[in-house]
């Protein structure tokens, strides 16, 4: 906790207070989470929501004479099958057993059939990009090329990278094939190597250990208990209380059903099967809240565990800054595209304090009101793009704008031309932030 306060300089405090005020007005005018979930319950899947590719987002015109010359992109994989086979098989096993003992209601029997469909659809596809994910990846790339005609040209140099993992790698390949159909000739370098894990899939034992310390865990468990009520759902599915008591963990089963409900959107079963009908709107919001809180503790600047989890991505941010400087001398446009796990994008958005992602609070109940909402931060197909602008090579006043899932994002930095920011200010702010944290770590290690 002490460490947390060290970060907050006066200027930051001003920004945070300002930000909170702004958000509260936004929440009043914009849609609330409950409304958004009602409009599309698939959002309740959190970071497992498939980012829809709608109309091209509007770009605020760049200040006069400035043109984009470099894009640094960190993207989530497209829609994919869940990575745990058990999420499909365990709930089905419960229903199959209950059915064999005649303990299912009519609805329960129907759910059992639906679960069987989901299991066979996911069979031998664990963690793989779905056909919808392939389409989505191509659509995103098409929109990106059309959105940035000044930079996405055959003159550009495309450096495309992925972590070594099926869903990210296939997202990269699909994007690449799409790019190739729109760009001839194409100068490209494609790599998927464990060599680059250090900034694309960083690990940090100290932060991992700090994430779920006993205080945080106790707090989170209390939050779960306060938001849990599964008896209505269980009674709608099972006929026998004794069976429920002896054979079912209602909390686990309803969570699994909820996760599966959110996974269907990625598959070809999307318009054929649903599980959201099992839940009331209030239950959907409740489950989402629990999931959201968990992601916040793991990736956000949560005050409960010291607020340092976003620093997991410090080498990623440092690499972004380093690249921004090293491309300054290039004549030709350059595009860096990297496909990483969605939690990397999420934590990076928090570290960069994009929009409301930098929120620091210990009040897990307040996340929705404060605007820390997973499906707005790092859905599947989501991305962070830093676009660099200049008037010509050697322009001392490079500007950047950051797109979060394609939309212009607010940075915690003062500017006279929002959503554009002066590169020198951006760099200074983030480097200071990184140095402060790294100094704390160095001091901690020196004490040992």
């Amino acid at each position: 906790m002490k460490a947390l306060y060290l970060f907050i300089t006066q200027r930051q405090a001003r920004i945070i207070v300002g930000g909170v005020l702004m958000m509260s007005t936004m929440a009043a005018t914009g849609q609330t989470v409950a409304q958004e979930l009602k409009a599309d319950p698939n959002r309740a899947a959190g970071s497992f929501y498939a980012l829809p590719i709608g109309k091209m987002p509007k770009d605020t015109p760049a200040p006069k004479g400035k043109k984009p010359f470099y894009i640094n992109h960190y993207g989530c994989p497209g829609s994919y099958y869940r990575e745990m086979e058990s999420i499909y098989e365990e709930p089905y096993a419960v229903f199959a057993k209950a059915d064999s003992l005649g303990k299912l209601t009519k609805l329960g029997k129907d759910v059992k059939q639906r679960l069987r469909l989901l299991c066979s659809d996911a069979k031998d596809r664990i963690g793989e990009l779905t056909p919808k994910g392939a389409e989505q990846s191509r659509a995103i790339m098409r929109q990106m090329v059309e959105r940035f005609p000044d930079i996405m040209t055959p003159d550009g140099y495309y450096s495309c990278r992925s972590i070594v993992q099926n869903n990210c790698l296939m997202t990269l390949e699909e994007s690449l094939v799409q790019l190739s159909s729109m760009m001839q000739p194409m100068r490209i370098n494609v790599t998927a190597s464990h060599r680059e894990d250090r900034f694309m899939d960083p690990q940090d034992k100290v932060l991992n250990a700090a994430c779920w310390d006993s205080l945080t865990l106790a707090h989170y468990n209390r939050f779960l208990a306060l938001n849990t009520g599964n008896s209505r759902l269980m009674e709608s599915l099972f006929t026998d209380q004794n069976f429920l008591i002896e054979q079912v963990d209602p909390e686990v089963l309803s969570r699994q059903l909820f996760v599966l409900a959110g996974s269907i959107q990625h598959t070809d079963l999307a318009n054929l099967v649903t599980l959201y009908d099992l839940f009331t709107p209030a239950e959907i919001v409740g489950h989402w809240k629990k999931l959201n809180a968990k992601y916040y503790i793991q990736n956000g600047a949560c005050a409960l565990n010291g607020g340092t989890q976003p620093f997991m991505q410090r080498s990623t941010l440092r690499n972004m800054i380093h690249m921004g400087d090293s491309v300054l001398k290039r004549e030709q446009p350059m595009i860096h595209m990297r496909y990483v796990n969605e939690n990397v994008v999420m934590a990076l958005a928090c570290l960069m304090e994009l929009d409301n992602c930098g929120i620091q609070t210990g009040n897990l109940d307040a996340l929705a009101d404060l605007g820390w909402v997973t499906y707005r931060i790092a859905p599947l197909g989501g991305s962070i793009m830093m676009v660099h602008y200049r008037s010509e090579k050697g322009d001392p006043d490079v500007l950047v704008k950051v797109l979060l899932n394609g939309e212009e994002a607010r940075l915690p930095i003062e500017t006279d031309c929002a959503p554009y920011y002066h590169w020198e200010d951006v760099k200074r702010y983030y480097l200071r932030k990184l140095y402060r944290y790294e100094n704390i770590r160095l001091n901690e290690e020196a004490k040992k």
Partner: protein
Amino acid sequence: MERMKKTIYTLSGKALVISGLLFTFSPSYAQTVRDLIIKKPTYASCNYDTYPDSVPNNLTPSPKGKKPFYISHYGRHGSRYISSRSGYDIPFKMIAHADSVNELTPTGDRVFDEMKLVMNDTEQRWGELTSYGKIQHRAIARRLVERFPEIFCDNAHVSCISTIVPRCIESMGVAMAEMKQVNPKLRITMVASQRNQWYMNHQDRKLRKNYMTPEAQKAYNTYISSRLGNSRLMELIFKNPDIVKEIVDEENFNYYLMKMGLFQQNTHFYKNTYLRDLFETDELYRMWQIDNALWYIQHGACKLNGGKQPTSQRYLLRQLIADADSCINLEKPGAQLRFGHETVLLPLVCLIGINGYDLATDNLDELEEKGWWCSSVFPMGANLQFIFYRSSPSDRDVLLKVLLNEQEAKLPIATDCAPYYHWADFRSYCLGKLE
């Protein structure tokens, strides 16, 4: 031809280089393995050999009145880094140990340094596709589209399946991106799923467990006994080869260091041939013989273990036939491309009997003279392309030809139009073999 081979074999090294050059303009069957190794030392490393940088454009024109309409393909990933550390660790630990007791000659010091470079370069890249591997797949894909424009026309469907191994997925991706460069209007789909592993990368545990029968082991031991070891290399690298034998196993050191040197040609170290050049042609050649015999026992129709090893690819062959059956019914089937591994491609070639690779023998000494040369089948990027021809969708007499590494291949089936074969004949021949 036999006589010719023997003559060349006895010629001196210099004359061999010249004859090697001459032979680039003459049919390849006149060459010996030793010639090939002189021309391209990596040929000696069998499955670690690199794909040729260029391929002669000598395809027979389409049969009269018929046009290519469908391609079915199985290709190996391109050049990769070595799959695991163990192959490099064996010689590295030995030389490191020798270094720690001050037993390296000045050449040995240099060798040790070069090995460290290779180890550092490969660290965290085990099994990954190299940039050379990507270049190979781009070139193969481009040639495929350019050679068969009738198939890769606008809106043609190109359906790709890769094994779930990242280097295969990457090979597929760069190949497809390249095809889009040639024709942006292709309709490409790509899948890399566990669902297809049962035929895309089938490793038959039972066959694999039983390939080294006592008879095979005996024959193999006899065959390799005179070919292992390298005292010249030991003297070059170690101050006291006799003393160092306590910590350096000569046979293993020689074998794995040679592999390391040849493997480098797959990475961006390809210009550095220092390790490779430590070895003389005959040493490389002996290693090729050792490996070729082992590959034959593992995947060929070797009589020493019952000759069933190639049937490990029965599912793949059935799938190829089933896919072709259904595609022939379509007006414009396009292409079906599969990206996998050499341990699938080699037994598949043996199973079908392409270019005589169905050779069945119990005499390992026969392999070389009868042309069972594994390196010609499965270098990095190796591929098998089945090109189908017909005059129109209603034409019942579909023909096909098989390209092994983009060169027309022979099948053990009677035909009146070689290198083309009647699909009906090929189909019944293959299904007969599978029964």
